[in-house]
């Protein structure tokens, strides 16, 4: 039992790390621009496909493909911010509807270009096993957890100490006040969107080798990332990290007691219950009079 529990906890930390990467991007974008980008999941998926493209067609190096896909998706994020979300600034309903349009357009563009079938991304780290006590895990699991941990640490440092990070925090606290003290908020918006989509791409590229690359691969991480943000408290960066990990671990551990078919519903039910009971989330950030 203890063995099985430990195994599910490690699995949960791995999937939770992926949710954290998605949630971090969404929470930053929500904080700064007050946009809930439902298209974040398809950008995650696009990251997986771009990584697959670079890995199989251009360079044989997984790490290089990973970085390239982050760069490409940062540019895609830039285009989406300038072309779609900025013109709709302040119109919440239309921003959400436009993000649904992006989901349809991007997901089906990928189907049109790469076909509907799942692609394999063969990477050595999924086949090497690492022993952890009596259990063995693919090195890739631990790599995902490790890379996410490093990203989270870098992100906290960046937000706390760098000039741009401080500007991001200031803008998400009070956009008008940030403008008054001379922060170029539109540049902050662009930087935040690039950062967010690059993190989503990293998530997609990391998950690709484990669960294949397919057009719907971003749907579940997007919803789970959203659940993580709500759990942590809408607008709280540490909340997104903790929330994402909790959703991942709960969901994995729940497979020990519940049929796996209902694993997803567990996460959604938890999400609704949290919103009903404690809408400010675990970290108690209440943003701009919502909910």
């Amino acid at each position, binding site marked *: 039992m203890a063995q099985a529990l430990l195994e599910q906890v490690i699995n949960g930390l791995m999937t939770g790390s992926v949710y954290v990467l998605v949630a971090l991007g969404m929470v930053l974008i929500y904080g700064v621009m007050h946009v*809930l980008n439902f298209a974040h999941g398809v950008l995650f998926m696009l990251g997986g496909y771009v990584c697959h493209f670079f890995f199989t067609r251009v360079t044989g190096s997984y790490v290089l493909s990973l970085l390239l896909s982050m760069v490409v998706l940062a540019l895609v994020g830039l285009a989406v911010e300038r072309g779609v979300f900025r013109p709709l600034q302040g119109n919440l309903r239309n921003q959400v*509807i436009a993000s649904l349009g992006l989901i*349809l357009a991007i997901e089906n563009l990928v189907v049109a270009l790469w076909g509907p079938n799942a692609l394999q991304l063969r990477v050595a780290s999924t086949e090497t096993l690492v022993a952890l006590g009596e259990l063995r895990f693919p090195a890739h699991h631990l790599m995902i957890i490790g890379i996410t941990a490093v990203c989270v640490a870098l992100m906290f440092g960046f937000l706390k100490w760098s000039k741009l990070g401080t500007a991001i925090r200031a803008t998400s606290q009070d956009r008008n006040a940030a403008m008054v003290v001379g922060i170029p908020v539109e540049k902050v918006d662009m930087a935040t969107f690039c950062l967010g989509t690059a993190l989503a791409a990293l998530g997609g590229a990391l998950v690709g080798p484990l669960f294949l690359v397919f057009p719907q691969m971003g749907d579940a991480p997007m919803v789970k990332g959203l659940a993580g943000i709500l759990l942590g408290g809408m607008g709280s960066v540490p909340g997104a990290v903790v929330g994402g990990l909790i959703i991942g671990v709960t969901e994995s551990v729940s497979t020990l007691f519940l*049929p796996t078919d209902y694993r997803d519903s567990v996460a959604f039910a938890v*999400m*609704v219950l949290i919103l009903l009971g404690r809408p400010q989330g675990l970290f108690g950030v209440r943003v701009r009079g919502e909910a």
Partner: protein
Amino acid sequence: MTRFAAPAALLAVLYFAPALSGPYLLHVLVLCYLYAIPAVGLNLMLGYTGLVSLGHIAFAGIGGYTAAVLMVDARLGYWSALAVAVAAAGAAGAAIGLVCLRFRSHFFMIVTLAFGLMLYSVMNNWDDVTRGAAGFPGIPRPPAFTTLESFYRLALTGALAAFAVQWLVVRSDFGRILIALRQDERLAEAKGVNATLYKTAVFALGSALAGLGGALQVSFLRVAAPASFNLAESINAVLIVIVGGAGSLAGPALGALLFVGLPEYLRVAAEWRLVVFGALLVLITLFAPRGIAGVIDDGWRRLARRGR
């Protein structure tokens, strides 16, 4: 008198379409009607009241599966099963709406999304009742409507009923209160409107219409499949309403006609058609927020002004 001449002529043409056209066109038109019925429900919620539900088609699923279970397993008569299916979708809408409506803006959308996904998961996994992912086969068409021609008339009647309900609601006090809630909820509440009551009522009504669409759809296709009621279909419903023109009477019809009809006409592959519609949705929100109905309306006014 001329006000009613054009719609009456259109109706006459639509009712006699089976005599005029081949089975292919009829099939496409039936699909249009079946997409338009839930879209009318969503239009009442999204267009008139301002409630963006991202799980609307899950309620069509409740209607579809209720009809399937009652007709096939419980051997209930077709019409009573249909009525119960619509009522069940409406009741589920009232119950779930009551929870969702405790939230506003972003959070309302997230919660409707979550309920949509949960309902889909139930349809997909509750094998004993819904037959799971493989779908629920053997759903009958009503006794007098088994052929395509006759089912066409049934679907048209269903769609007309939905549009009639929409028309009656919009021109009633109930409809005016819904519009007031969209424009300024606080002001409406200050005037003594019980916002939660009215919003729950429109959520239930919208869901019941979705249930009607779902029940007719499974009976047309003779099978209920969970994939007909997933998140992508809920997004399509939003697409139909917004592209057609949210908050306009004809919007859902225009949207459904474009969504089903145009790709059939152009003969493009399914994935490209959704790429185009996704892009169209983004462009509409950017440049024509009132949808096609709004564009036609503006064009008509401009013409009328020039004529004078």
